[in-house]
């Protein structure tokens, strides 16, 4: 297990280093002059030259990369060109929206998917299975940003139960509070969770069906264990590994989804910050935010691999 963890951790570090190199190359090296991109095609050459000097573009690319990585390791992401404030502070503010939103969506998706997947598998090829899988197909096909708009139409415009957009903040001092903030995140989380939950329900059903055919389940049933008890005590644990793996991979889709959904609901999250920064041509913020989102995906996948190895230690032995 230790060898597995060590190897996996080294892979994580290499992947993070490679991701930072890719982001740097695409944004700082390939397009030519980053200062020109940030100021626009009509900017005065003197202003472009001054910004290029401020950004350190007169230095070799490897020195700029090393400087950026050194800053990141010390928690310094640089200063935003458009906002005039440290990128680290901007990101921290926005993470207070994006992280709870992603966790809420993943939590909702996981609960619904496990229940739906188990239900469908336990009624294999019967009406319950066919009906659940039809709903799953619909869930996969619906674009999350369209669902978000439909939810706004229903719950905010017609029923007026929930806000149509915006975020009041977590603190009552800022005019928000825990419950208003949670309400503001509910519709975005549901619109993200439906697609992810549908995919996960399908994987859960397949995994549960595979395990149901195993000898140990037949033995457990032969020893008098009820179908429901066998399902929850033996089948679910063994079906969890593929479900967890897909969950990790799905987190990438979920984060990509937050970029879109945050824009639908005008939520001041990380995705909206990236999007606004592209509009503002604030490449420093885009660079750090894209790397942060990629790093979150990589770290979640690492955590999922480790968790899967603890659930099924044979995986760690095989990988090591």
């Amino acid at each position, binding site marked *: 297990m230790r060898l597995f963890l060590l190897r996996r951790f080294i892979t994580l570090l290499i992947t993070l280093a490679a991701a930072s190199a890719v982001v740097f190359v695409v944004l700082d090296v*390939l397009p030519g002059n980053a200062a020109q991109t940030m100021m626009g095609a009509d900017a005065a050459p003197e202003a472009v030259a001054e910004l290029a000097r401020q950004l350190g573009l007169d230095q070799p690319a490897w020195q700029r990369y090393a400087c950026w990585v050194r800053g990141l390791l010390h928690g310094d992401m640089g200063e935003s060109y458009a906002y005039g404030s440290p990128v680290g502070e901007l990101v921290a503010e926005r993470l207070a929206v994006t992280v709870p939103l992603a966790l809420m969506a993943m939590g909702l998706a996981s609960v619904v998917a496990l229940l739906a997947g188990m239900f469908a598998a336990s009624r294999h090829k019967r009406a319950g299975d066919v009906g659940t899988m039809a709903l799953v197909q619909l869930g996969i096909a*619906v*674009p999350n940003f369209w669902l978000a*708009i439909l939810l706004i139409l229903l719950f905010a415009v017609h029923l007026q139960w929930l806000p149509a957009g915006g975020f009041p903040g977590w603190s009552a001092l800022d005019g928000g509070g825990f419950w208003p903030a949670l309400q503001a995140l509910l519709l975005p989380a549901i619109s993200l969770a439906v697609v992810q939950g549908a995919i996960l329900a399908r994987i859960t059903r397949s995994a549960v069906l595979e395990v149901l055919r195993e000898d140990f389940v037949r033995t457990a049933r032969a020893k008098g264990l009820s179908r429901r008890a066998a399902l929850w005590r033996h089948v679910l644990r063994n079906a969890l590994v593929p479900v967890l793996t897909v969950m990790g991979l799905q987190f*990438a889709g979920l984060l*990509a989804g937050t970029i879109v959904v945050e824009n639908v609901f005008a939520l001041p999250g990380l995705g909206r910050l990236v999007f606004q920064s592209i509009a503002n041509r604030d490449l420093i913020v*885009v660079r750090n935010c894209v790397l942060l989102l*990629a790093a979150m995906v990589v770290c979640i996948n690492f955590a999922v691999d480790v968790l899967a190895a603890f659930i099924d230690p044979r995986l760690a032995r095989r990988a090591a």
Partner: protein
Amino acid sequence: MSASSTRPGRSRRPWQRALRHGSFALGGALTLLVLGAAFVSLWWTPWSPFAMDMAQRLAPPGAAHWLGTDAFGRDVASLLLVGARSSLIAGVVAVGIGLLIGTALGLLAAARRGWVEELVMRLADFSFAFPAVLSAILLTAAWGAGLVNAILAIGIFNIPVFARVARAGALSVWSREYVLAARACGKGQLRITLEHVLPNIASALIVQATVQFALAILAEAALSYLGLGTQPPQPSWGRMLADAQTLMYQAPLLAVWPGAAIACAVLGLNLLGDGLRDLLDPRLSHSR
């Protein structure tokens, strides 16, 4: 004589089986509907999708405008028909990029094994850190918004998916006895790959292509919604949704049609993929 008399019946059987398969038939019909809409729009639309008529703005569905008009008085049905083209172009090119490069890499990894395989697979693992929307944001920030950059980003994301599918299938084929026999006959790796491996993994690649096609349509719509994909005045379903969102209180139906079109296309392709999987590899159908 008896053999020849049974041949036509046999050749019809796969099609009969396909048409009786619920997922395949429904998915095929929905996909044909979207394909048909895109092709018909090349020659005919009820109105010009670019013709603005401010006197008719936000008109409800009726005889003149079947699905109503948008904020500029443009015919929504015509916009939907032409918008199908952007989605299909994005799907075809992005899946083409992934299929060509990804399959080549996967086949190379399976044929050469060793460090080549390790390198290709680690690169595939790494690229999962950049989902299509994130890749598109990266490319857009560097090179500007547009359909080409969006398609490129979606295509890049497809490469590792096809590389994995091709490698997994190819590894299984390389371990078969007929491949061993081909090697004993002196056939090289390239020839074995082209003559034996590729035809045997084609069905898995076709199934994956339908799934990725659906994902590409979703990604293109999302990017166009954000303003990073298809640019105005070219109609696209994602862009139509973005425009409709600002008019949600006055004309809620405007937000329904483009979303329904995207869902219809994605559902059709997913069902088609499921159907193809069952028909091409019936062993897999029991677990779905």
